[in-house]
Structure formats: C-alpha cells, structure tokens
C-alpha cells in the first residue's frame, strides 16, 4: 500500500489518479452513450430495453459498476481537494489578468465544470439509476420499462434544460480532460499526441451531442 500512497500525497501522484479515474469514466461514457443511442431506432424502446435488461442483470457489468462508482467518488473528492489546494497557492492576486492570452478558459475551469456535472449527476441518478435499482417501479412484470421512465421524465421541460446544460459542461470538461489525462500519465509524443488530441476533440463533441439529443428528441416527440 505504501507503494501507491503517492497517488494521494504528491502533486504528480494526485494528478495521475485523476487521469486514471478520468479515463475509466471516459470508457464508461462510450458504453453509456452507445446503449442509450438504441432509442434512436425509434421502435418504442424495444432494443433499448433489451440492452438495459442485459446491463442490469449481467454479473460482470454489476461488478464493474462497483468499480465505476469507486472511480467516480475518487475523481470527485480528489478533484475538489486538488482545486481547493491549488487555489491557495497565490494569496496575492494579480491586478491585471490576461488568462486568455496563454490558455483556454475551460482548461482553467475544470473545477467549476466538474461541479456543474456533479449537480447534473445527482439529478440524473435520481431520475433513472435510483428508480431502476432501488424501487419496484421498473419491472417487466409491472409493465413499466426504463424507456417509459425516460418518456415521463423528459415530458417536463426543466429536466431537458438541465440535461442540455449538463451535456455542454461535459463537452468542455472532456475537451480539456481527455488530452490532459494522457499528459498527466506522461504520454506526450510528437507522433501520437496529435492523434490523441484529435480523438479527444471528436469524443468531446460527439458523445455529449448524442446524450443531449436524447432528452430533446423525446421532449419534442420525435421518439415515442
């Protein structure tokens, strides 16, 4: 355990942990977006419900979910504590600032973007995860599916609005986070880094766009 204690104590180790947990969350997003995109078959949620049933009952997926929540928790706690400690390194502030001249605003705002995501996440888990795992509301025998739950939630414009804001925060969070994770792990190469950066930009635009399309499409009744 002593061997890995640097992941919680040193400035570089803490960033390594942020990178590892961040990249595993990126992998999760890809699976999540892929499965949820099944609603775009517009078959009354049949394909989607089938996939959701598999995810809910496969023991491998269920065990991975524990790892996912652990990684998420570490990413949140470590992220908040790193932001707080970094903010204490300059007690006397600059009179003139020219931040945009040397860096992107979203790279300097990861703490705020992450916090917006956290607020969204609480609402999102309450809508779907809690309902499907801890209540009897969603069961095939009860005649109600996860797809039906989506239809109900996204009838209301407020969740649709919050979900779109959440997706925009996610896009900017990923735009910096995806390539930053590789840098934190020491991966910077004249040939591979441009490829990593291009994949990062593509991922950051595409995945949040697919996610944002779901509440919008359901609210407007394009998918029934």
């Amino acid at each position: 355990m002593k061997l890995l204690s640097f992941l919680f104590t040193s400035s570089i180790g803490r960033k390594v942990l942020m990178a590892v947990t961040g990249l595993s969350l990126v992998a999760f997003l890809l699976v999540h977006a892929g499965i949820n995109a099944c609603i775009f078959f517009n078959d009354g949620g049949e394909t989607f419900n089938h996939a959701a049933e598999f995810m809910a009952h496969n023991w491998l997926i269920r065990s991975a979910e524990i790892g996912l929540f652990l990684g998420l928790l570490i990413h949140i706690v470590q992220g908040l504590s790193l932001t707080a400690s970094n903010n204490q390194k300059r007690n006397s502030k600059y009179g003139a600032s020219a931040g945009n001249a040397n860096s992107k605003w979203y790279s300097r705002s990861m703490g705020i973007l992450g916090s917006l995501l956290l607020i969204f996440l609480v609402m999102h888990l309450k809508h779907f995860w809690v309902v499907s795992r801890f209540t009897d509301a969603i069961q095939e025998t009860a005649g109600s599916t996860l797809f039906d739950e989506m239809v109900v939630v996204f009838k209301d414009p407020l969740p649709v609005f919050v979900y779109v804001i959440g997706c925009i925060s996610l896009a900017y969070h990923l735009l910096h986070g995806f390539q930053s994770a590789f840098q934190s792990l020491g991966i910077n190469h004249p040939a591979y880094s441009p490829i990593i950066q291009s994949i990062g930009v593509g991922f950051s635009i595409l995945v949040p766009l697919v996610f944002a399309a779901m509440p919008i499409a359901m609210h407007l009744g394009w998918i029934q």
Partner: protein
Amino acid sequence: MSKLMKLNLKVWRQKNTNSAGNFEEYKVDASPDMSFLEMFDVLNEQLIETGKEPVAFDHDCREGICGMCSMVIDGRPHGPKQGVTTCQLHMRSFSDGDTITVEPWRANGFPVIKDLTVNRSAFDRIIASGGFISTNAGNAVDANSVLIPKEVADEAFEAATCIGCGACVSACKNASAMLFVGAKVTQLSKLPQGKPERESRVVAMVNQMDAEGFGACTNTGACAAECPKQIPLSVIANLNREYISAKMNGK
C-alpha cells in the same frame, strides 16, 4: 531620433514582504527604442530627482540569458511578446498613450522582497535537492568516450535552455513550478551522466517542489506559452513519466 512616447504606468509598490502593497501611477516619456528596463531606469531617475523612493526591480545581464528580470506586464510575465524576457522587450511593442500595469511574480513560493523584486530561492532549494550529477574527479575523459545520439542531446539541450526565471510559476493559475522542475529533470535524465541519480533525483525534486508551496499541474499550457525560452510542455510529461516510474520502483 524617434519621437518620445507618453506612457502611463501602474506599478506595484510594496515596502517589504510583510506589508500589503498597492498600485502607484506614474507618467514616463520613453523612446520606442528603449528596452522595458531602460524605461524603468528613466522612471527611477525621475523619482530620485523628485526625492522619492525608486522602484526596486531585478535585472542583471539585460541580454535575455540570466533570468533575473521578472515583471508581469499587463497580466503577462515578461510582457506581450513570445520568447523574450522583460529586458529584451522594447517600448516599440507599446503605443503612445498606453497605460501599462506592472506587477511582481505572484506566488506563495515567491514572496515579494520589495516592489517588483521577489525571492526565488525556492528554485535554488529545488535544484539543491537533486539537480546535480556525481562525477569522479581526475583527468578529463575523451569527448567521444560516451556516445549520445543527436536527438537525445538535442532534447536535453532544449530543456537546459531554462534560465530559471520563474515566469512559468507566475503564469500558472496554480502557481505550479512543473515546467521548471520538468526542464531540470529532463535535462539531466536524458544524458548518461545523469543516470545514476535518475530516480532519487526526480522524487527529491518533486518533494521539495511540493514543500515550497507550488501548486499541482492542471495542464493549461500557460507556462509554456509564457516561457521566454519556449520550453515545451513535453518536459512536464517527461517529469510525470520519470516520477511514476521511480515511484513504481519503490523510490
């Protein structure tokens, strides 16, 4: 001779480390051919002639190699130009009638000594913790007895151009010293002469960096963008790599 420019300056004045400090406004007529520091010499002569305390600022070589000058000009360390130090910045980069804000490096790791002068001995302590190599005394060995590939020598040399001015710390939102430490670790770890202490060095230097009160790296890239020697961000990746591998080896 070129026409003189009329400039308004907002300069940070701070009596000592423990006093609060504030901006003072001054008017200076400067030639566009002057360097930024020469313009400050003119300001200080004006202040001395009127019986006021001159502005304290660091400078030494005035040719961009010593790393002493350290002014944040309009929010940017070493001013608006890329790849230059304050002493190599000329007044032709500004316009007649401009208001220019001049501040010291601001970071808890660099306490202000007076006005625009900061104490950068934290960097010295980081170097002392591991930024050296061990060599045997005796006759100088033949230059070609240790072969070093050209690309490796180039990488080490590029990192070695760091003059330790601290612009990276002053530009970073976290006041992180990762570009400086990355440059020093890269310079030494790439070459065979630096291999014996490779792992203990990186761990010692990072420990000292953290102890001096510098922040962690958010990879915003502000440091490399403002570095007067244009040290690339890849030295930070190299530092991370060296550190992770040393830690995994139990150092």
